[in-house]
């Protein structure tokens, strides 16, 4: 499998000929087939498509949450790593350090405060000295405008605030890529734009942002868009480097 060379301008994440099949009661279902794409720093990549087209499955594969049925994924981390070769434990650590995941339903841990939720990835990945973690987390919350909510439990906050907290958590270990699966699907339109601005700011700061979305009116935020139909890329718009 040919992957790009690990250069500063090269991709952060590369997928080659990805496929994913599920066993169902009526036989094998091919959810994705022959997907290849590169994700670079500064990309704001939208993955669009109808329900059941394979968007979430693709995101799950790119983040190592699910195993590929075929193909490979390469990450520029640690001088270049084929993540499809990693075991679950290494994959979790890679994900914790290199990828920030944001969900539609926020998925904050309800028993922890916003601050603790933000510190949790640092704790698991032992990314920063223990004494610095609180300060770093507060700085992120400050940046996202929810520092005042730091000691609140997630359920005491509005949807928009929860999504900001989720983004804060995704940024905790300063990953190169943020992957968001319909992060605005549960938000009103004003909050949606606030959240999108936050993602755009991350892109401008040099991170790559990958987002699954249904919402066509957000297209102005994206630098690239790929459209999936029945598990295959059927259209690709924007700067395909």
């Amino acid at each position, binding site marked *: 499998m040919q992957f790009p060379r690990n250069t500063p301008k090269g991709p952060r994440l590369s997928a080659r000929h990805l496929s994913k099949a599920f066993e169902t009661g009526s036989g094998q279902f091919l959810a994705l087939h022959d997907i290849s794409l590169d994700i670079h720093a500064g990309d704001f990549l939208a993955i669009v498509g109808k329900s059941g087209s394979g968007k979430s499955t693709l995101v*799950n594969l790119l*983040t190592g*949450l*699910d*195993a590929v049925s075929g193909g490979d994924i390469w990450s520029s981390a640690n001088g270049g790593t084929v993540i499809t070769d990693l075991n*679950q*434990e290494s994959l*979790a*650590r890679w*994900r*914790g*350090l290199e990828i*920030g*995941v944001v*969900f539609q*339903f926020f*998925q904050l*841990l*309800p*028993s*922890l405060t916003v601050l*603790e*939720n933000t*510190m*949790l*990835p640092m*704790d*698991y*990945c032992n990314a920063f000295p*223990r004494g610095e973690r*609180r300060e770093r987390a507060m700085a992120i919350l400050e940046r996202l405008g929810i520092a005042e909510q730091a000691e609140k439990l997630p359920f005491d906050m509005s949807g928009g605030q929860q999504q900001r907290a989720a983004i804060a*958590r*995704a940024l*905790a*270990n300063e990953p190169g890529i943020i992957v968001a699966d319909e992060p605005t699907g549960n938000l009103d339109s004003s909050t949606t734009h606030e959240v999108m601005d936050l993602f755009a700011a991350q892109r401008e700061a040099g991170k790559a942002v990958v987002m699954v979305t249904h919402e066509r009116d957000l297209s102005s935020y994206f630098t690239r868009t790929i459209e999936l139909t029945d598990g295959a890329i059927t259209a690709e718009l924007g700067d395909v480097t």
Partner: protein
Amino acid sequence: MTIPPRWRKLIADFGSIKGRLALVIAAMAIGLLTTIAITNAYAILTREISANYLGTNPASGILDIGEVDQTLVAQVRGMDNVAAAEPLSIVETRVRYPDGRTGRALLFVSPNPLDQSLNTLRIEEQMASPPANAVHLERRALDLAGIGLGERLSIEIPGSGFVPVLVAGTVFDPSLAPAEQEQTIYAYLSQQTFVALGGQSALEWIKVLVAEDPFDQALVDQTLAGIAIALEAAGHNVHLVQAPNAGLHPHEGQMRGILGLFLAFGVLAFLLSAVLVSITVEGLMAQQIRQIAIMKTIGARTAQISTLYITGIAIIAATMLFVALPIGIALGRGLAGIIADLLNFDIVDASTPPALFAAWLVTGLLIPVLFALRPIFRATGTTVVAALSDLGIGRSSGAGGRLNRFVARLFGTSGQTLLALRGAFRRRRRTMMILTLLGLAGAMYMTAGTVSVSYQASVDIAAAERGYDAEFRLTRPLDRNRVAAIAAATPDVIFAAPMMRLEAARMRGDGVALVRTYPDGGHGSMTLYALPGTQELARFQGLEGALPVERLDGQMVVNQGAWALLGRPRIGEQVNLSLDGKRLELPLAAVIRQYMTPASVFAADTDVAAMTGESGINALRVVNAARSPAEVEAVVDRVGQQIEAAGAGISLVVTGNLMDAAVSGHVNILIVLLLALGVLMAAVGFLGLTAAQGISVLERTREFGIIRAIGGQRRQIVTNLLTESLVIASISLPAAILVSIPLSTAINIIVGRMTFGMALPFTPDVCGMGEWAAVSLVGALVAGLPPAFNASRLSVRETLVQQ
């Protein structure tokens, strides 16, 4: 210091189920403290019983020679492998209590009982200046005698009648069962005192301690048999060799057996309570599965999450250990004290062996963790994608499956009952665990009742089959016709059976009669009854062979106790017995069942007379018209006076009342312990049921939301959950009955064999079953109420937004 977020999360997770955790810790603590208490009692008792017994320097054996003098004692002392030898006599006689009743007494006569080197005695209390010709009683006999120190007790001295004897003190003899249990007064007196009170001057027995390895039973037997053969060769007549189990207290085997049984139950209770950890952790994990997935998404490794929860369980186990340890140790000491008191020995050192502490620590910490591993690994091993799509609705709640189809056929396909039945079995493994707990608790409770009732049944059968109210044992044989005439002439005596009664022992191939009895004659003694016919035996049930129709001539019949002591010979096999040193050899004709009766052999009086020269009558069984204990005593007195007037003394009168008093209460401690274990296991079971229902509610939060959303009322949800609890309790009932049958049978066998060599007659305790049914149904309702009310209080909005 800040606690890292992942640990904060663990604390919060456990905090969210603190009610259930408290129940689980309580249940585990109960299970563990039961195990700790029983193992502690076991360790203390086995150590102390041995220390008490061996501390007396017990003789390896006692030889009944008939007449022993200092020369003979010196001669025995000089024999091979003999470390020490001392003379003594053990006289079985009667006492007359202050209230006029008579009872059994054993007099231990030796040159200086308070300063002997074998079977030493410890003075418990004594008068400041003990006068001459006084006796010491075993410490437990003073209460039975109903007198105080310095008072006189009327003791029958063979040949001299009842003599008031001053009790100068009490001694501790750990080799004897408590006096009140055996209904026997144990008295210790010097040879000089015995003679002064009118007893015979010569001592009859020699105690011997073997020199080389006194705990090697084979060597002890060989040495004692060698001494007996040498003495026979020197012209002495060795009637019997008593060789108790080498180095073992007479009750040690029984005690170990019973404690071992309880230990098994205790461990079972602990393991079952550990199952609750598994159930609770499974519930917690079901609740946490999505959060675990999120943690993995943000970089947590499976090992990190597993370690987190395993550590949490270890902390819970440590808390449980912290609660259970001091209570268990104290209970164990208390139990040891009760059993030591029951068996008449002292606990000098109540400390727990350090190794046991280590075992408790390891077990208490390790078992809960081991039981928690499966649900933890299952949850943490779930893939992120699978965990994130878990909606928290039980997969096994569908209507498929054979069980559900069966339930649907039974109760129809709609309605609350069906819903409750399906709810009760939606997590079958968990339900099975709770059923096991409740079933075993019920089985234990019913077993306690059944053993108690079975024991009482055996006492009743024994009383019904006994066929006499009193047995007189005479100090010398009298003519049969004369004894019969005495009985016939005594008012209120309506039937009399005169017979010859002799101590018997199995004769070894080398001609030595060696038995495993202790100095009090208990544990392994055997009695032969020489009978004119089979009338006395006809009322007993046969176990082997066929009872001869009219006479026993040329044959022998034994009861189950004697059969066991004789090594279970086949019907028709020749049996060699030693009767006071004389050989009786007859084929075995039948084995009969006699409850609550020591080992007994029956032979024709003519055969006994022909082979041993023993004839006449030395025992008389009478049936009288009187029924109250006082009336029976009066009749007994009248018969006794007539026998004495005829020229024979009475060594002992065994009345039905005396036998009933001796056997009652023997198994009370066993029953109480079984009941206590049953109650403990029930507590564990109901705590488990509460915890399981709580988890079930948690898992079905959305389900309850849907029920409410489609019109279900709160009381219907409460009714539904309470019905689930009742369903589980109801199913546990037949399970408990089924388990209690083999369990009761096994304990009936153990207890029966320990007491009289045969299983107790299985008699189910129907009242106990009813009691348990009531307890379990009420318990189920009480256990089901908290989760049911919690479920009913959830709002529709809350339940449906649960992710």
